[in-house]
C-alpha cells in the first residue's frame, strides 16, 4: 500500500489548524498541525513532509522564514502559503523563492484540497528523482 501523504499545517489561528486537520485527515492525509512557527520548523528539521501549508504572518519566524527553511533543508517538499487578502505584496516576494501556490483566506476546502493534491504529486515526483 502507498504511504499516506504527510502534510504539515502551520497557522497561529487554531480554527484554521483544526479544520484543516479534520478535513485532510478525513481525506486520507496524515496531518500534523502547529500554531507556533518555531515548533513547526523544529519538526521540519526532524521529519520529511510532502506538503507544508503555512500562514504568512505570525509571531516569531514568519511564513517566509518557514519557506526559506524548507527550500534549504527539505528539497522536494512543496509549500502552500496562506495569505490574508491585504498581504499580497509579501506574497509576491515569496513567489520568487519557490512556493508551490498561494491560497487567500477565506478559502474553500475544495480549493485547498485540489492544491494539496497537486503539490503532493509534485513532491513525490521530485522525491522519487532524488532517491533512485
Amino acid at each position: 500500500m502507498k504511504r499516506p501523504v504527510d502534510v504539515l499545517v502551520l497557522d497561529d489561528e487554531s480554527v484554521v489548524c483544526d479544520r484543516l486537520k479534520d478535513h485532510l485527515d478525513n481525506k486520507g492525509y496524515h496531518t500534523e498541525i502547529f500554531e507556533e512557527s518555531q515548533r513547526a520548523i523544529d519538526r521540519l528539521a526532524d521529519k520529511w513532509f510532502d506538503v507544508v501549508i503555512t500562514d504568512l504572518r505570525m509571531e516569531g519566524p514568519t511564513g517566509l522564514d518557514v519557506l526559506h527553511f524548507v527550500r534549504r533543508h527539505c528539497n522536494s517538499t512543496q509549500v502552500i502559503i496562506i495569505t490574508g487578502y491585504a498581504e499580497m505584496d509579501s506574497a509576491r516576494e515569496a513567489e520568487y523563492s519557490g512556493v508551490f501556490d498561494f491560497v487567500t483566506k477565506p478559502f474553500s476546502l475544495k480549493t485547498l484540497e485540489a492544491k494539496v493534491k497537486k503539490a503532493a504529486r509534485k513532491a513525490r515526483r521530485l522525491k522519487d528523482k532524488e532517491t533512485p
Partner: protein
Amino acid sequence: MILGKLGFLSRRKAQTVARLQERLGSFRDLVEKNDRVLELIAEASEKLGGEYIFDSHYLQTLADDLREAVHAVVHDLTVVTGEPYPELLKALAAADARIRAALDSRIIVPEAEYVIPLDQVGTASTDVVGEKMARLGAIRARLGCRVPAGFVVTTHACRHLLDEIGATESAEELDRLGEDDGDQLAQCAKRLQQRVRRATLPRGLSRAIRRGVTRLEREHRCSRFAVRSSAVGEDGESSFAGQYKTVLGVEPENVCSAFQEVVASLYDPHVVRYRLSRGLPPGRGVMAVGCLCLVPAEVSGVVYTLNPASVEDEDLLVVAARGLGKVVVEGDGAVDRFTVARQPPHQVVDSTIANKETMLVASSGSGLAEDPVDEKLREEPAVRGPRLRELAEMALRIERYMRCAQDIEWTVDRDGQLFMLQTRPLKLPLPEPGLRDDLSEIVKQYPVLLNNRGEVSCRGIAHGTVHVVEDVEAAEKVSPDTVLVARTATPKLAGGLSAASAVITDHGSSTGHLSAVAREFRVPMIVNTQIATEVLEDGVDVTVDAEENVVYRGRVEELLRYELRRQSLFQDKPEFRMLRSMLHAIAPLSLRDPQAPEFTAASCSTYHDVIRFAHETAITALTEGELVSRSSDALGVRRLALPIPLDLTVLDLGGGLTADAKDRVVGIDDVTSRPLRPLLEELTADGVWDTSPAAMDLNGFMSSATRSTPLTGPAAARPEPNLAIVSDRYLHLSLRLGYHFNIVDTYLTETRNDNYVHFRFAGGVTELARRSRRAALLKAILERYDFAVEGTGDLVIGRIKGVSATTMVARLRMLGRLIGFTRQLDIFLRDDTLVERYLEDFLTALPHASRAESFKGDG
C-alpha cells in the same frame, strides 16, 4: 417647472443644478454601497456553511468593511434628502455595538422578562435562557420529552443584578489582571462572589422569582427545587460544563439565595482562572439560571448515546443509581452500568451491577441527605430491560434532533415516569485519521441517487425519509426523520426546516434566505440540484452526505456514525459562533414593506434594516421630490417614447442609456440597462398592454365589458409621472397605472449571488373582495415563478434572489407582462373561480419555453 423659472436667474439655476447633481452623485454612491453591503452579507452568510476556512482576521475585516459601507449609505442618504436621521444613527450605533461585542466574544444581553416559564422556552434565544435551558426547552417542545416543571431566570435578570450591585464594574478590574497576578486574581474574584451572595436582590427580580416558585408549588405540588446554571456563549456549556454551580434540594423560601449562589459561581476563582487560560476576559460572563422542580427520584442516571470507551461498537452506555443522580454525574458512588444496543429492540449487551448501599435524597430540611437503600434492592439492577429500551429510544431521538452524540441526564420519579434533566454534546475520542477515506470505499456499495449536483449550502450528514413538498404550507409540520425535497428554496420552508433532517432543492442558491436558515439550525442542505424532485421519490429512505455532495439510497450507517463521532462540529468553533452572532446584528431584515407604519428609522435593528430604510427613503426623496419630476438635461433625465400610452421618465445613473441618447426623448433601443430592457420589451410587446383579461382568449368572456371600460378604471385619474432610475445593471421602476402602484427594484449581473428582484404591487380602486382576489392571483403567478411572496389584503410583495442572469431576464419579462396584465384586473375579478382561470391564461400566454430555458440557465 422650477428649473425653467430659474432659467432667468442663471447663477441660482447653476447652483440648483449643482446641488441636484451632488444629490444624484450621492444617490449613485448609495446604490453602489447598498449593493456592496448586500454582497458582503451574502458572502458572510455563506461562510457559516462549513465549506470555507476563515479566521478572526477575516471577521475583523468583514466587520470593518461592512461598517464603512453602511455608514457611507447613511451619509449618502443625508446628502440625497438634506435631512438628518438621528433615529437611524442611533439604530446604527446599536448594531455597531452588537457587532463589536460579537467580535470581542462579549455577550450582549437582550432585553427580556426576568423570568420565563420553561414551557415557553422552546423558541427563546440562548442569549436569553442560556444553552442548557434552551436545549431542555427545545426537547420538551420539539420532541415531547417529559422535563421537570420550572422557570428560567433570564440573562437579563442576571445582568441587572450584577449592574445593580456594581459587580460589572468590579469585574472590569478583574479583566485587567493576568495569569501572573494569581493571588490578586483569586482575592478579587472571591470579593465579587461575596458581593453577589450578600446582595439584596432588586425588588422586581425577587418578586418575579417568588411568583415563579409559588406557581410551581401550587400547580405542580413542588416542594423542593433544583437551581442550575445555564451558561451563554464563550463556547457555552461544552467547555464550562461542571464549572458553574448547581444547588439541589432547595426549599421554596431559599430559591432566591440559591439563585445568587449560582450566579456567584461566575466569579469562582477556578472559573476565572479557566477563562483566563482560554484567552477569555476573566471577569466577563453572564448566565441564565434554571429553577426546576426537584423530581422525587427513585432512580437517576446518565445515558451516553455512544460509549466513549468503545465508539466502534453500536452501543449506548447507561449509568444508573438509586435516588438522585448526583453520584452518577460526579462519579463518586456505587453505580450500575449497562451497555445497550443502539439498534432496536435495544438489547442489553453487557451490565455491571454494583452494591448500592446508600442513595441521595432531598433532606427534610434544605439540601440533600444520604439514605440507606432497602437491603433487598441493593444488589438488584437500578433499571431493567423495558426502562432501558425507553431510555435508548428517547436518547436516540434527542441525538437525531441535536445532530451529534449526546450526554443526557435523566431521572425516574416514584410514579415510574421518566424525566430528562439535561442534554449536551458528548465528548468523544477523535476519529482515526483517514477514516473518511476508508469510508469512500465502503460507501461504493450503496446506490447513488444524486452525485455532485448543485451546491452544498450547509455541510453535514443526515438520514431520513424523502418528503417531496407539494404544499409549502403543509411542510410546516415535518417529523425529525424527514428529508425535505422541494422545487425551490422558498423561505416558506423555513418553518419546517428546523425539524427536518436535511433539505434538498431543485433551485435556489447558497446565499438565499432558506440556506441561511439551514445554517442557523445546522440542517445539512444541498441546493440547485435541478433534478432532486424528479429523482427522489416520496417515502424513499436516503442518506444525505452534504460533505461530499452525494445522496445515497438507504441508510449508510458508516457515514452516519462518522458524523456522530466527529469530536467537535465546526459550528462550535469560536469563530463560527462569533460570525453567527455578528450576522444576527447584520443580516435579518425586519423592514419589509415601505408602506407599513413600522417602516421607520427607529425600527431598524440590523445593518440590513438600515440600508433598506436608507435606500427606500432616498428613492422616495428622488421620485417624490422636485429632483426628477422636472426634466433637466444636466441631470441626464430623459423621457421614454413608448409604443404604448405610458409616460415614463428615465434617470440614468450611468450606463443605463446609450451614449447617443442625447435628446430629451429617447426610444427603447436607447435603453442599455440590462434589467429595464427586457421588462419594457415585454410590456410593449404585441397584445400585452392591450391584454385585458378578456382578450386573453377567454372565449369572448367579458369582452364587451373590456371594451366599454376605460383602461385606467372607471374614474380615470390624472396621469402620474412614472420613473425608472437605471444604471447598466440596476433598475428602480415606480409605475402608477391608474389606481395601481407597481415597484420593481432589481439588480442584474453575471454574478448570480448579487442578483435580485423585488416586486411590489398595491392600490386599486375596486371593492375589497375583488382586490383580494387580484392579490391572490398575483401571488399565485409570482409563486409559479419562484418568487417568495408575502403581503396582506391588497398588497403583494414578491422577492427572488441568487438566480442566474438568464433566469433574471425571464423573470423581468414575466413582470413586464404581469404589469400589463394587472392594470385593471380587479375590475373583472367578479368571483373566486375566475382567479384560477386568469392564472391559467397568464401562464399560457407567457411562452412556457421561457420558463424552462431559464432553469437551464441556473445550472
